[in-house]
Each structure stands twice: as structure tokens, then as C-alpha cells.
């Protein structure tokens, strides 16, 4: 049973809908004005945090949203979760547009969407034992039935995240767990709600290298066997290349390139993607190809450059790039589903 039926909404009648469809989504925040700006009646300015992005995600699929900090990755996730309201566009979950639902009607849907945060040290309450942490969401959402059933679900969730035997972990406090184990508990906490979609925001960046692979393989297994969709937000292209089916590269609130992970990494077409890939340090010291280091940092999304928003930092920009805002399209000789927003690609 999907969350949609629970709230009496029919999924759209069309062909099997993707689990998540994001269409031309925009999330703009007003910039807080200082006193002088207010007195001088300067117009309110906007942060174009997410500025018209579209993508979809199917069950069993992992999509990585990559880009530098400030490019809009986290706002995208927060908007999908409706922690912030979108300015325009649609977010369809199992075919139902959630952007127009009231918070009350959203509630049952929320369960289907779970977030895994970056910092397992912050996302777990230090006063709660693992058992309480995992039972909490069941109590909040009024599921899990009897005490016994909740207990069983808790143990099952721990086993699913490979904290096994579960009895060894249920009574521990967060400080009695390693970083990797804490992140596993955080994942178990979202699994008890049986979500359709996991949003994982930098799920391993706080963890030690030696344990990252374990947590990522766990997420990988969950989406393959559990039929879940995972949207992973990361700045680590190597991780994205390894674990995601598709990669979407964001720059200043827009997706500038997306496509099958291996293809985006091996045959990048957007100059930004190319630069980004060129600066990823390789494991092999003999493999020191010269990185293409862009000057400066991502400009701020209040003053979005005209035309192609990447043109001020682009190594190949031409005059028309300062005027024309490129749309995503499939460049010549690329595979299915590979799209690039560049006039010169």
C-alpha cells in the first residue's frame, strides 16, 4: 500500500510513474535586507537556490546529485521533503504532486520519504538507547503495533543494516558505537517506516575511509533488494561514479549535465563537469594528469550571471554564451539519457 492511497489520492493513470519526478523545480529564498536597504526601499532580492531542475528516479535506482557547496543540492532535498516550500514546479511522488498538499495531508507521505543526514553524531540523540531511537519514528507515525511488534521491527531493522546480532546493539547509547555503526543506526531508524525513497545527504563524508564502503554497499543493497529509490547528495565524484546509476551535476541551482554514471564520468560533455572530474585526486600516484583548475569559487546564487550561468568561469565560453541560457539537450554521439546544458557541447 502506498502512502497515496492512504490519503485517498489516486496515482496518475498514465504509464508506470517514476517513484520521484521533479519538474522544473524552483526554490527561491528572499535575501534578508539590512536596515538601510529597507529604508531605501530597495527591492527584495532572491537567492535562486534551485532554479529550474528536472529529473526522475525509479524504484531500485540510485541517482547522485553532485556539485560544489552552494550549488543547490541540499535545498533540492529539503524541497522534496517539503522542509522548504518550492517557488514553482512539481514534485511527483508515485505520480502525486506534493507541492500543493497541505502539511497535514503531507504527513502520511512523509513516512515514505526518509532522510539520512551527513553527521551521525548529530542525528542521534545521545540520551537515547538504540532501541528508543529506532522506536521513536514508529511511535510518531503510530505504526508498529504492539510493544512486541515494535521490538521485532527494531531488531529486524538492525539486522538489515548489518548490526548483527541485533541484541548486541539495541541497548547501547550512541557514544558506545563507532561512527559507521551510528550511521547504520540512523539508516535503521528510517527503514522501520518502510520508505520508498531515501534522501541521503553526504551519508559517508563524516566517516572514516575504512568504513565508508560498508555504509555505501549497505545503501546499494537496500535499493537493489528493498526496491527503494535513493537520491544521494554528494560532492565526491568517485563515490558517485562507483555507486550511482545516474549522475546529475548541479551548478548554481541548475542541472548542467546528467546521464548514466559511467558515461558522465568517462565522457563528460559540459566544461564544468570536465573541470570537476579533472580535479578529483586519483589513487594512483603515476596517474597525475594535469587538473584543470577553475579560478574562484561558485558565485553566489543572488547574482546569477546572464546567459549561461557558468560562462564567467568557463574556459571555452564564446560571446553568445553571455546572452543565451542553454537548455538541457542530448549532445551528438552520446548514449540514451545523457543531457547537457551547454551551447557548445
Amino acid at each position, binding site marked *: 500500500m502506498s502512502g497515496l492511497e492512504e490519503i485517498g489520492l489516486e496515482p496518475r493513470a498514465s504509464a508506470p510513474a517514476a517513484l520521484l519526478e521533479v519538474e522544473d523545480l524552483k526554490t527561491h529564498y528572499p535575501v534578508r535586507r539590512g536596515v538601510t536597504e529597507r529604508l531605501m526601499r530597495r527591492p527584495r532580492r532572491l537567492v535562486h537556490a534551485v532554479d529550474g531542475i528536472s529529473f526522475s528516479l525509479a524504484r531500485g535506482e540510485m541517482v547522485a546529485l553532485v556539485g*560544489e*557547496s552552494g550549488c543547490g543540492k541540499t535545498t533540492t532535498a529539503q524541497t522534496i521533503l517539503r522542509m522548504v516550500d518550492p517557488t514553482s514546479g512539481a514534485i511527483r511522488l508515485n505520480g502525486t504532486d506534493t507541492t500543493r498538499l497541505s502539511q497535514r495531508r503531507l504527513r502520511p507521505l512523509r513516512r515514505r520519504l526518509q532522510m539520512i543526514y551527513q553527521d551521525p553524531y548529530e542525528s542521534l540523540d545521545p540520551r537515547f538507547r538504540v532501541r528508543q531511537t529506532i522506536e521513536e519514528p514508529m511511535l510518531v507515525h503510530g505504526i508498529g503495533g504492539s510493544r512486541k511488534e515494535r521490538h521485532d521491527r527494531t531488531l529486524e531493522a538492525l539486522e538489515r*543494516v*548489518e*548490526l*548483527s*546480532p541485533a541484541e*548486541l546493539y539495541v541497548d547501547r547509547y550512541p557514544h558506545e558505537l*563507532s*561512527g*559507521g*555503526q551510528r550511521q*547504520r543506526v540512523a539508516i535503521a531508524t528510517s527503514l522501520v517506516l518502510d520508505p520508498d525513497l531515501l534522501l541521503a545527504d553526504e551519508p559517508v563524508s563524516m566517516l*572514516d*575511509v*575504512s*568504513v*565508508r*564502503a*560498508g*555504509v*555505501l*554497499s*549497505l545503501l546499494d543493497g537496500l535499493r537493489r533488494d528493498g526496491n527503494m529509490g535513493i537520491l544521494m547528495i554528494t*560532492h*565526491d*565524484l*568517485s*563515490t558517485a*561514479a*562507483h*555507486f550511482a546509476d545516474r549522475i546529475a551535476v548541479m551548478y548554481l541551482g541548475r542541472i548542467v549535465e546528467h546521464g548514466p554514471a559511467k558515461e558522465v*564520468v*568517462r565522457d563528460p560533455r559540459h566544461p564544468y563537469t570536465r*573541470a*570537476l*572530474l579533472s*580535479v*578529483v*585526486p*586519483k*589513487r*594512483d*600516484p*603515476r596517474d*597525475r594528469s594535469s*587538473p584543470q*583548475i*577553475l579560478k574562484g*569559487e561558485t558565485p553566489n546564487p543572488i547574482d546569477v550571471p546572464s546567459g549561461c550561468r557558468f560562462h564567467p568561469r568557463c574556459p571555452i565560453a564564446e560571446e553568445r554564451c553571455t546572452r543565451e541560457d542553454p537548455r538541457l539537450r542530448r549532445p551528438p554521439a552520446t548514449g540514451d539519457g545523457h543531457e547537457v546544458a551547454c551551447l557548445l557541447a
Partner: protein
Amino acid sequence: MSLLEVRELHVWFDLQEGRELHAVQGVSFGLDAGERFGLVGESGCGKTTTILGLMGLLPPTASVAGEVLVGGESILAGGESSVRSHRWNDIAMIFQGAMNALNPVKKVLWQIVEPMELHGIADGTQARRMAGDLLEMVGIPASAGERYPHEFSGGMRQRAAIAMALACQPKILLADEPTTALDVMVQAQILELLVGLSNDLGLALVLVTHDLPVVAQVCERAAVMYAGEIVEEGPTEALYHAPRHPYTRLLFAATPDLYGDEAVVSIPGAPPRLDRAIEGCAFRPRCDSSLDRCESEHPEFRAMGAGHRAACHLNDLPGEERAAREGARRAGSAAPAATPGGGAP
């Protein structure tokens, strides 16, 4: 004679109830002018403690043993009074998280002028001019020195922290995780700067990080630390292509590579506690190819060829036997990322 020579450095921290934690357990390495040396290992393995020890900057709860020679002169032997004349003047460091620890109420230029005046390098107008030059050298316009740290981006603050460390023209720079909190593009900019400084000024650089690929790209040589000890040291090429300690091999195998297709595998278990004596090899409980003697006998360093050494009993086996042992285990360990029962990392 090396520029910096560290011999058998030990650090103990006093804990409550008379217990102590042996954070650094006999670390030795050396480096020459202009050389770039990496110090890598998991969180808690003693990287920061090692370099704070070199600087004589450990808290009063720490006891230190061993020798640190700068240009042949032992700097720790005479306690604070002997180390003070070398600290910042000969050997300087960029603290872990330095970019977020700049003084928020002082203009950036002043934060460079101050150490110069304090150490009698220059004062007044001359110090200000030199500080301006330093800022330019690290890629910040001198005029921006009149701004406060919060007006800088993360990358700019890290550049300022580097300029500050260079205020007294040291010969050796210890950089503790200088790019960990930064985006890949900014990381590439900072690494390019550090490499440039070591080339242009003949600065010897110790790059401390948990990020193997960063070390692989920047350093000629590196040491891998585990549980307070260096377990392998050598040219970065040798560490990657012909590691002689299973920990080095497994760390690389746990690190995803942009173009690598092989599965990334985490290392089961966690590092040992350092507040108890460790018997035998500290890595044995997590090792995939340990021998019986690893349980009781602490492995000593063995030279593996030019500038390459490792502390592992496997190196006492004939080459073929060692390869077979490691190879067999490697194939077997590739399946589950976590060991049931042993607890997921």
C-alpha cells in the same frame, strides 16, 4: 643530514584514575628541503598528536619522549625554552580546522603582522608590507587584508591560514587536513598552492590527511599510521603499486577511484583502544592475512628496498608464499562488506 628528523617519538596522555593513552608509539621519519611527505591514517591514529608533538604544542596532560632534530639540532631536549626559538621560525603548522579558527574580530592582515612582530621578523610599516606580500603570494590581493575573516570564502580563509603559518619564513610546514572541509575545486586550488610553495620556496611539507588520493597526487613519499605507529613508509608509488603492509593495501581498496571498476571494500572492525597495552600486531584483529605469530609478536620494521619499509610479519615469508596468502584472502574477503557477528564497522 635531513632537514627534519623525527626519532622514536612517543606521546602519552594522562587520563583519569591514573590511566594513560599511548597516542604516538615510536614514530620516526625524516624529510629534506622541498620534499613533500604525507602522513595518512584513520581518525584517531595519532597524526595530529604527532605533529603537535613536533611543534612542542601538546597540552600539559601529555608526556613526550623521543627526539626531533631540525637541521641537526635537537629542539625538544631543552623543553619549552629550546623549542620556542624554532617554533614558527623553522617549523610551522596549519592547524586542523584553522580556516574556521581565525580571530573573527581582527583584520586578516593584522593576524599575519602580529606573529611577525612577536618573533622580531619585522615591525611597523615593514611588517605590514611583508604581510601584504605574503597574502599576494597565497593568492589573496593585499588590499583584502583589510577585511575580516567572515568576509572571506572558505578557500580564502584557508589561504589566509597558510599565509599566517608562513609569517616567520619557516623551512618546514606541517599542514593538518588542510583541504578536508573544502570542495574539490577549492581543494585543488589549495593543493596547487601548497605544491607551488614547496617548489618555489624549497619548503618541506608534511601533509597530514586521511585522504589517500590527495597524498598520492601531492607527495613523493608517505607514511601510513595505524594505532599510534607508522606501519609502512615509502615512495607513494610503492605504497599504491606494491604495498608491503595489509593495512596499506586495504586502505587503498576501501577508497573509490573515479575510473576504478573493482568493488570498494571496507575494513571490518575498528582500530584498537590506545589506553591499554597492545599485544602482537595492532592491526591483527582487522587483518585479512595474519599469521599465528601476529597475535603475540610485535612486528619490527624491515627495509623493502630504496626508502621503503614496513612492519609486518608477512614480509618474513618467501615472496610467493606471502603473495599467495594475501591473494587468497583478498579474493575471499571481497564478498560481504561487514563481518556478521564481528560487528559492522
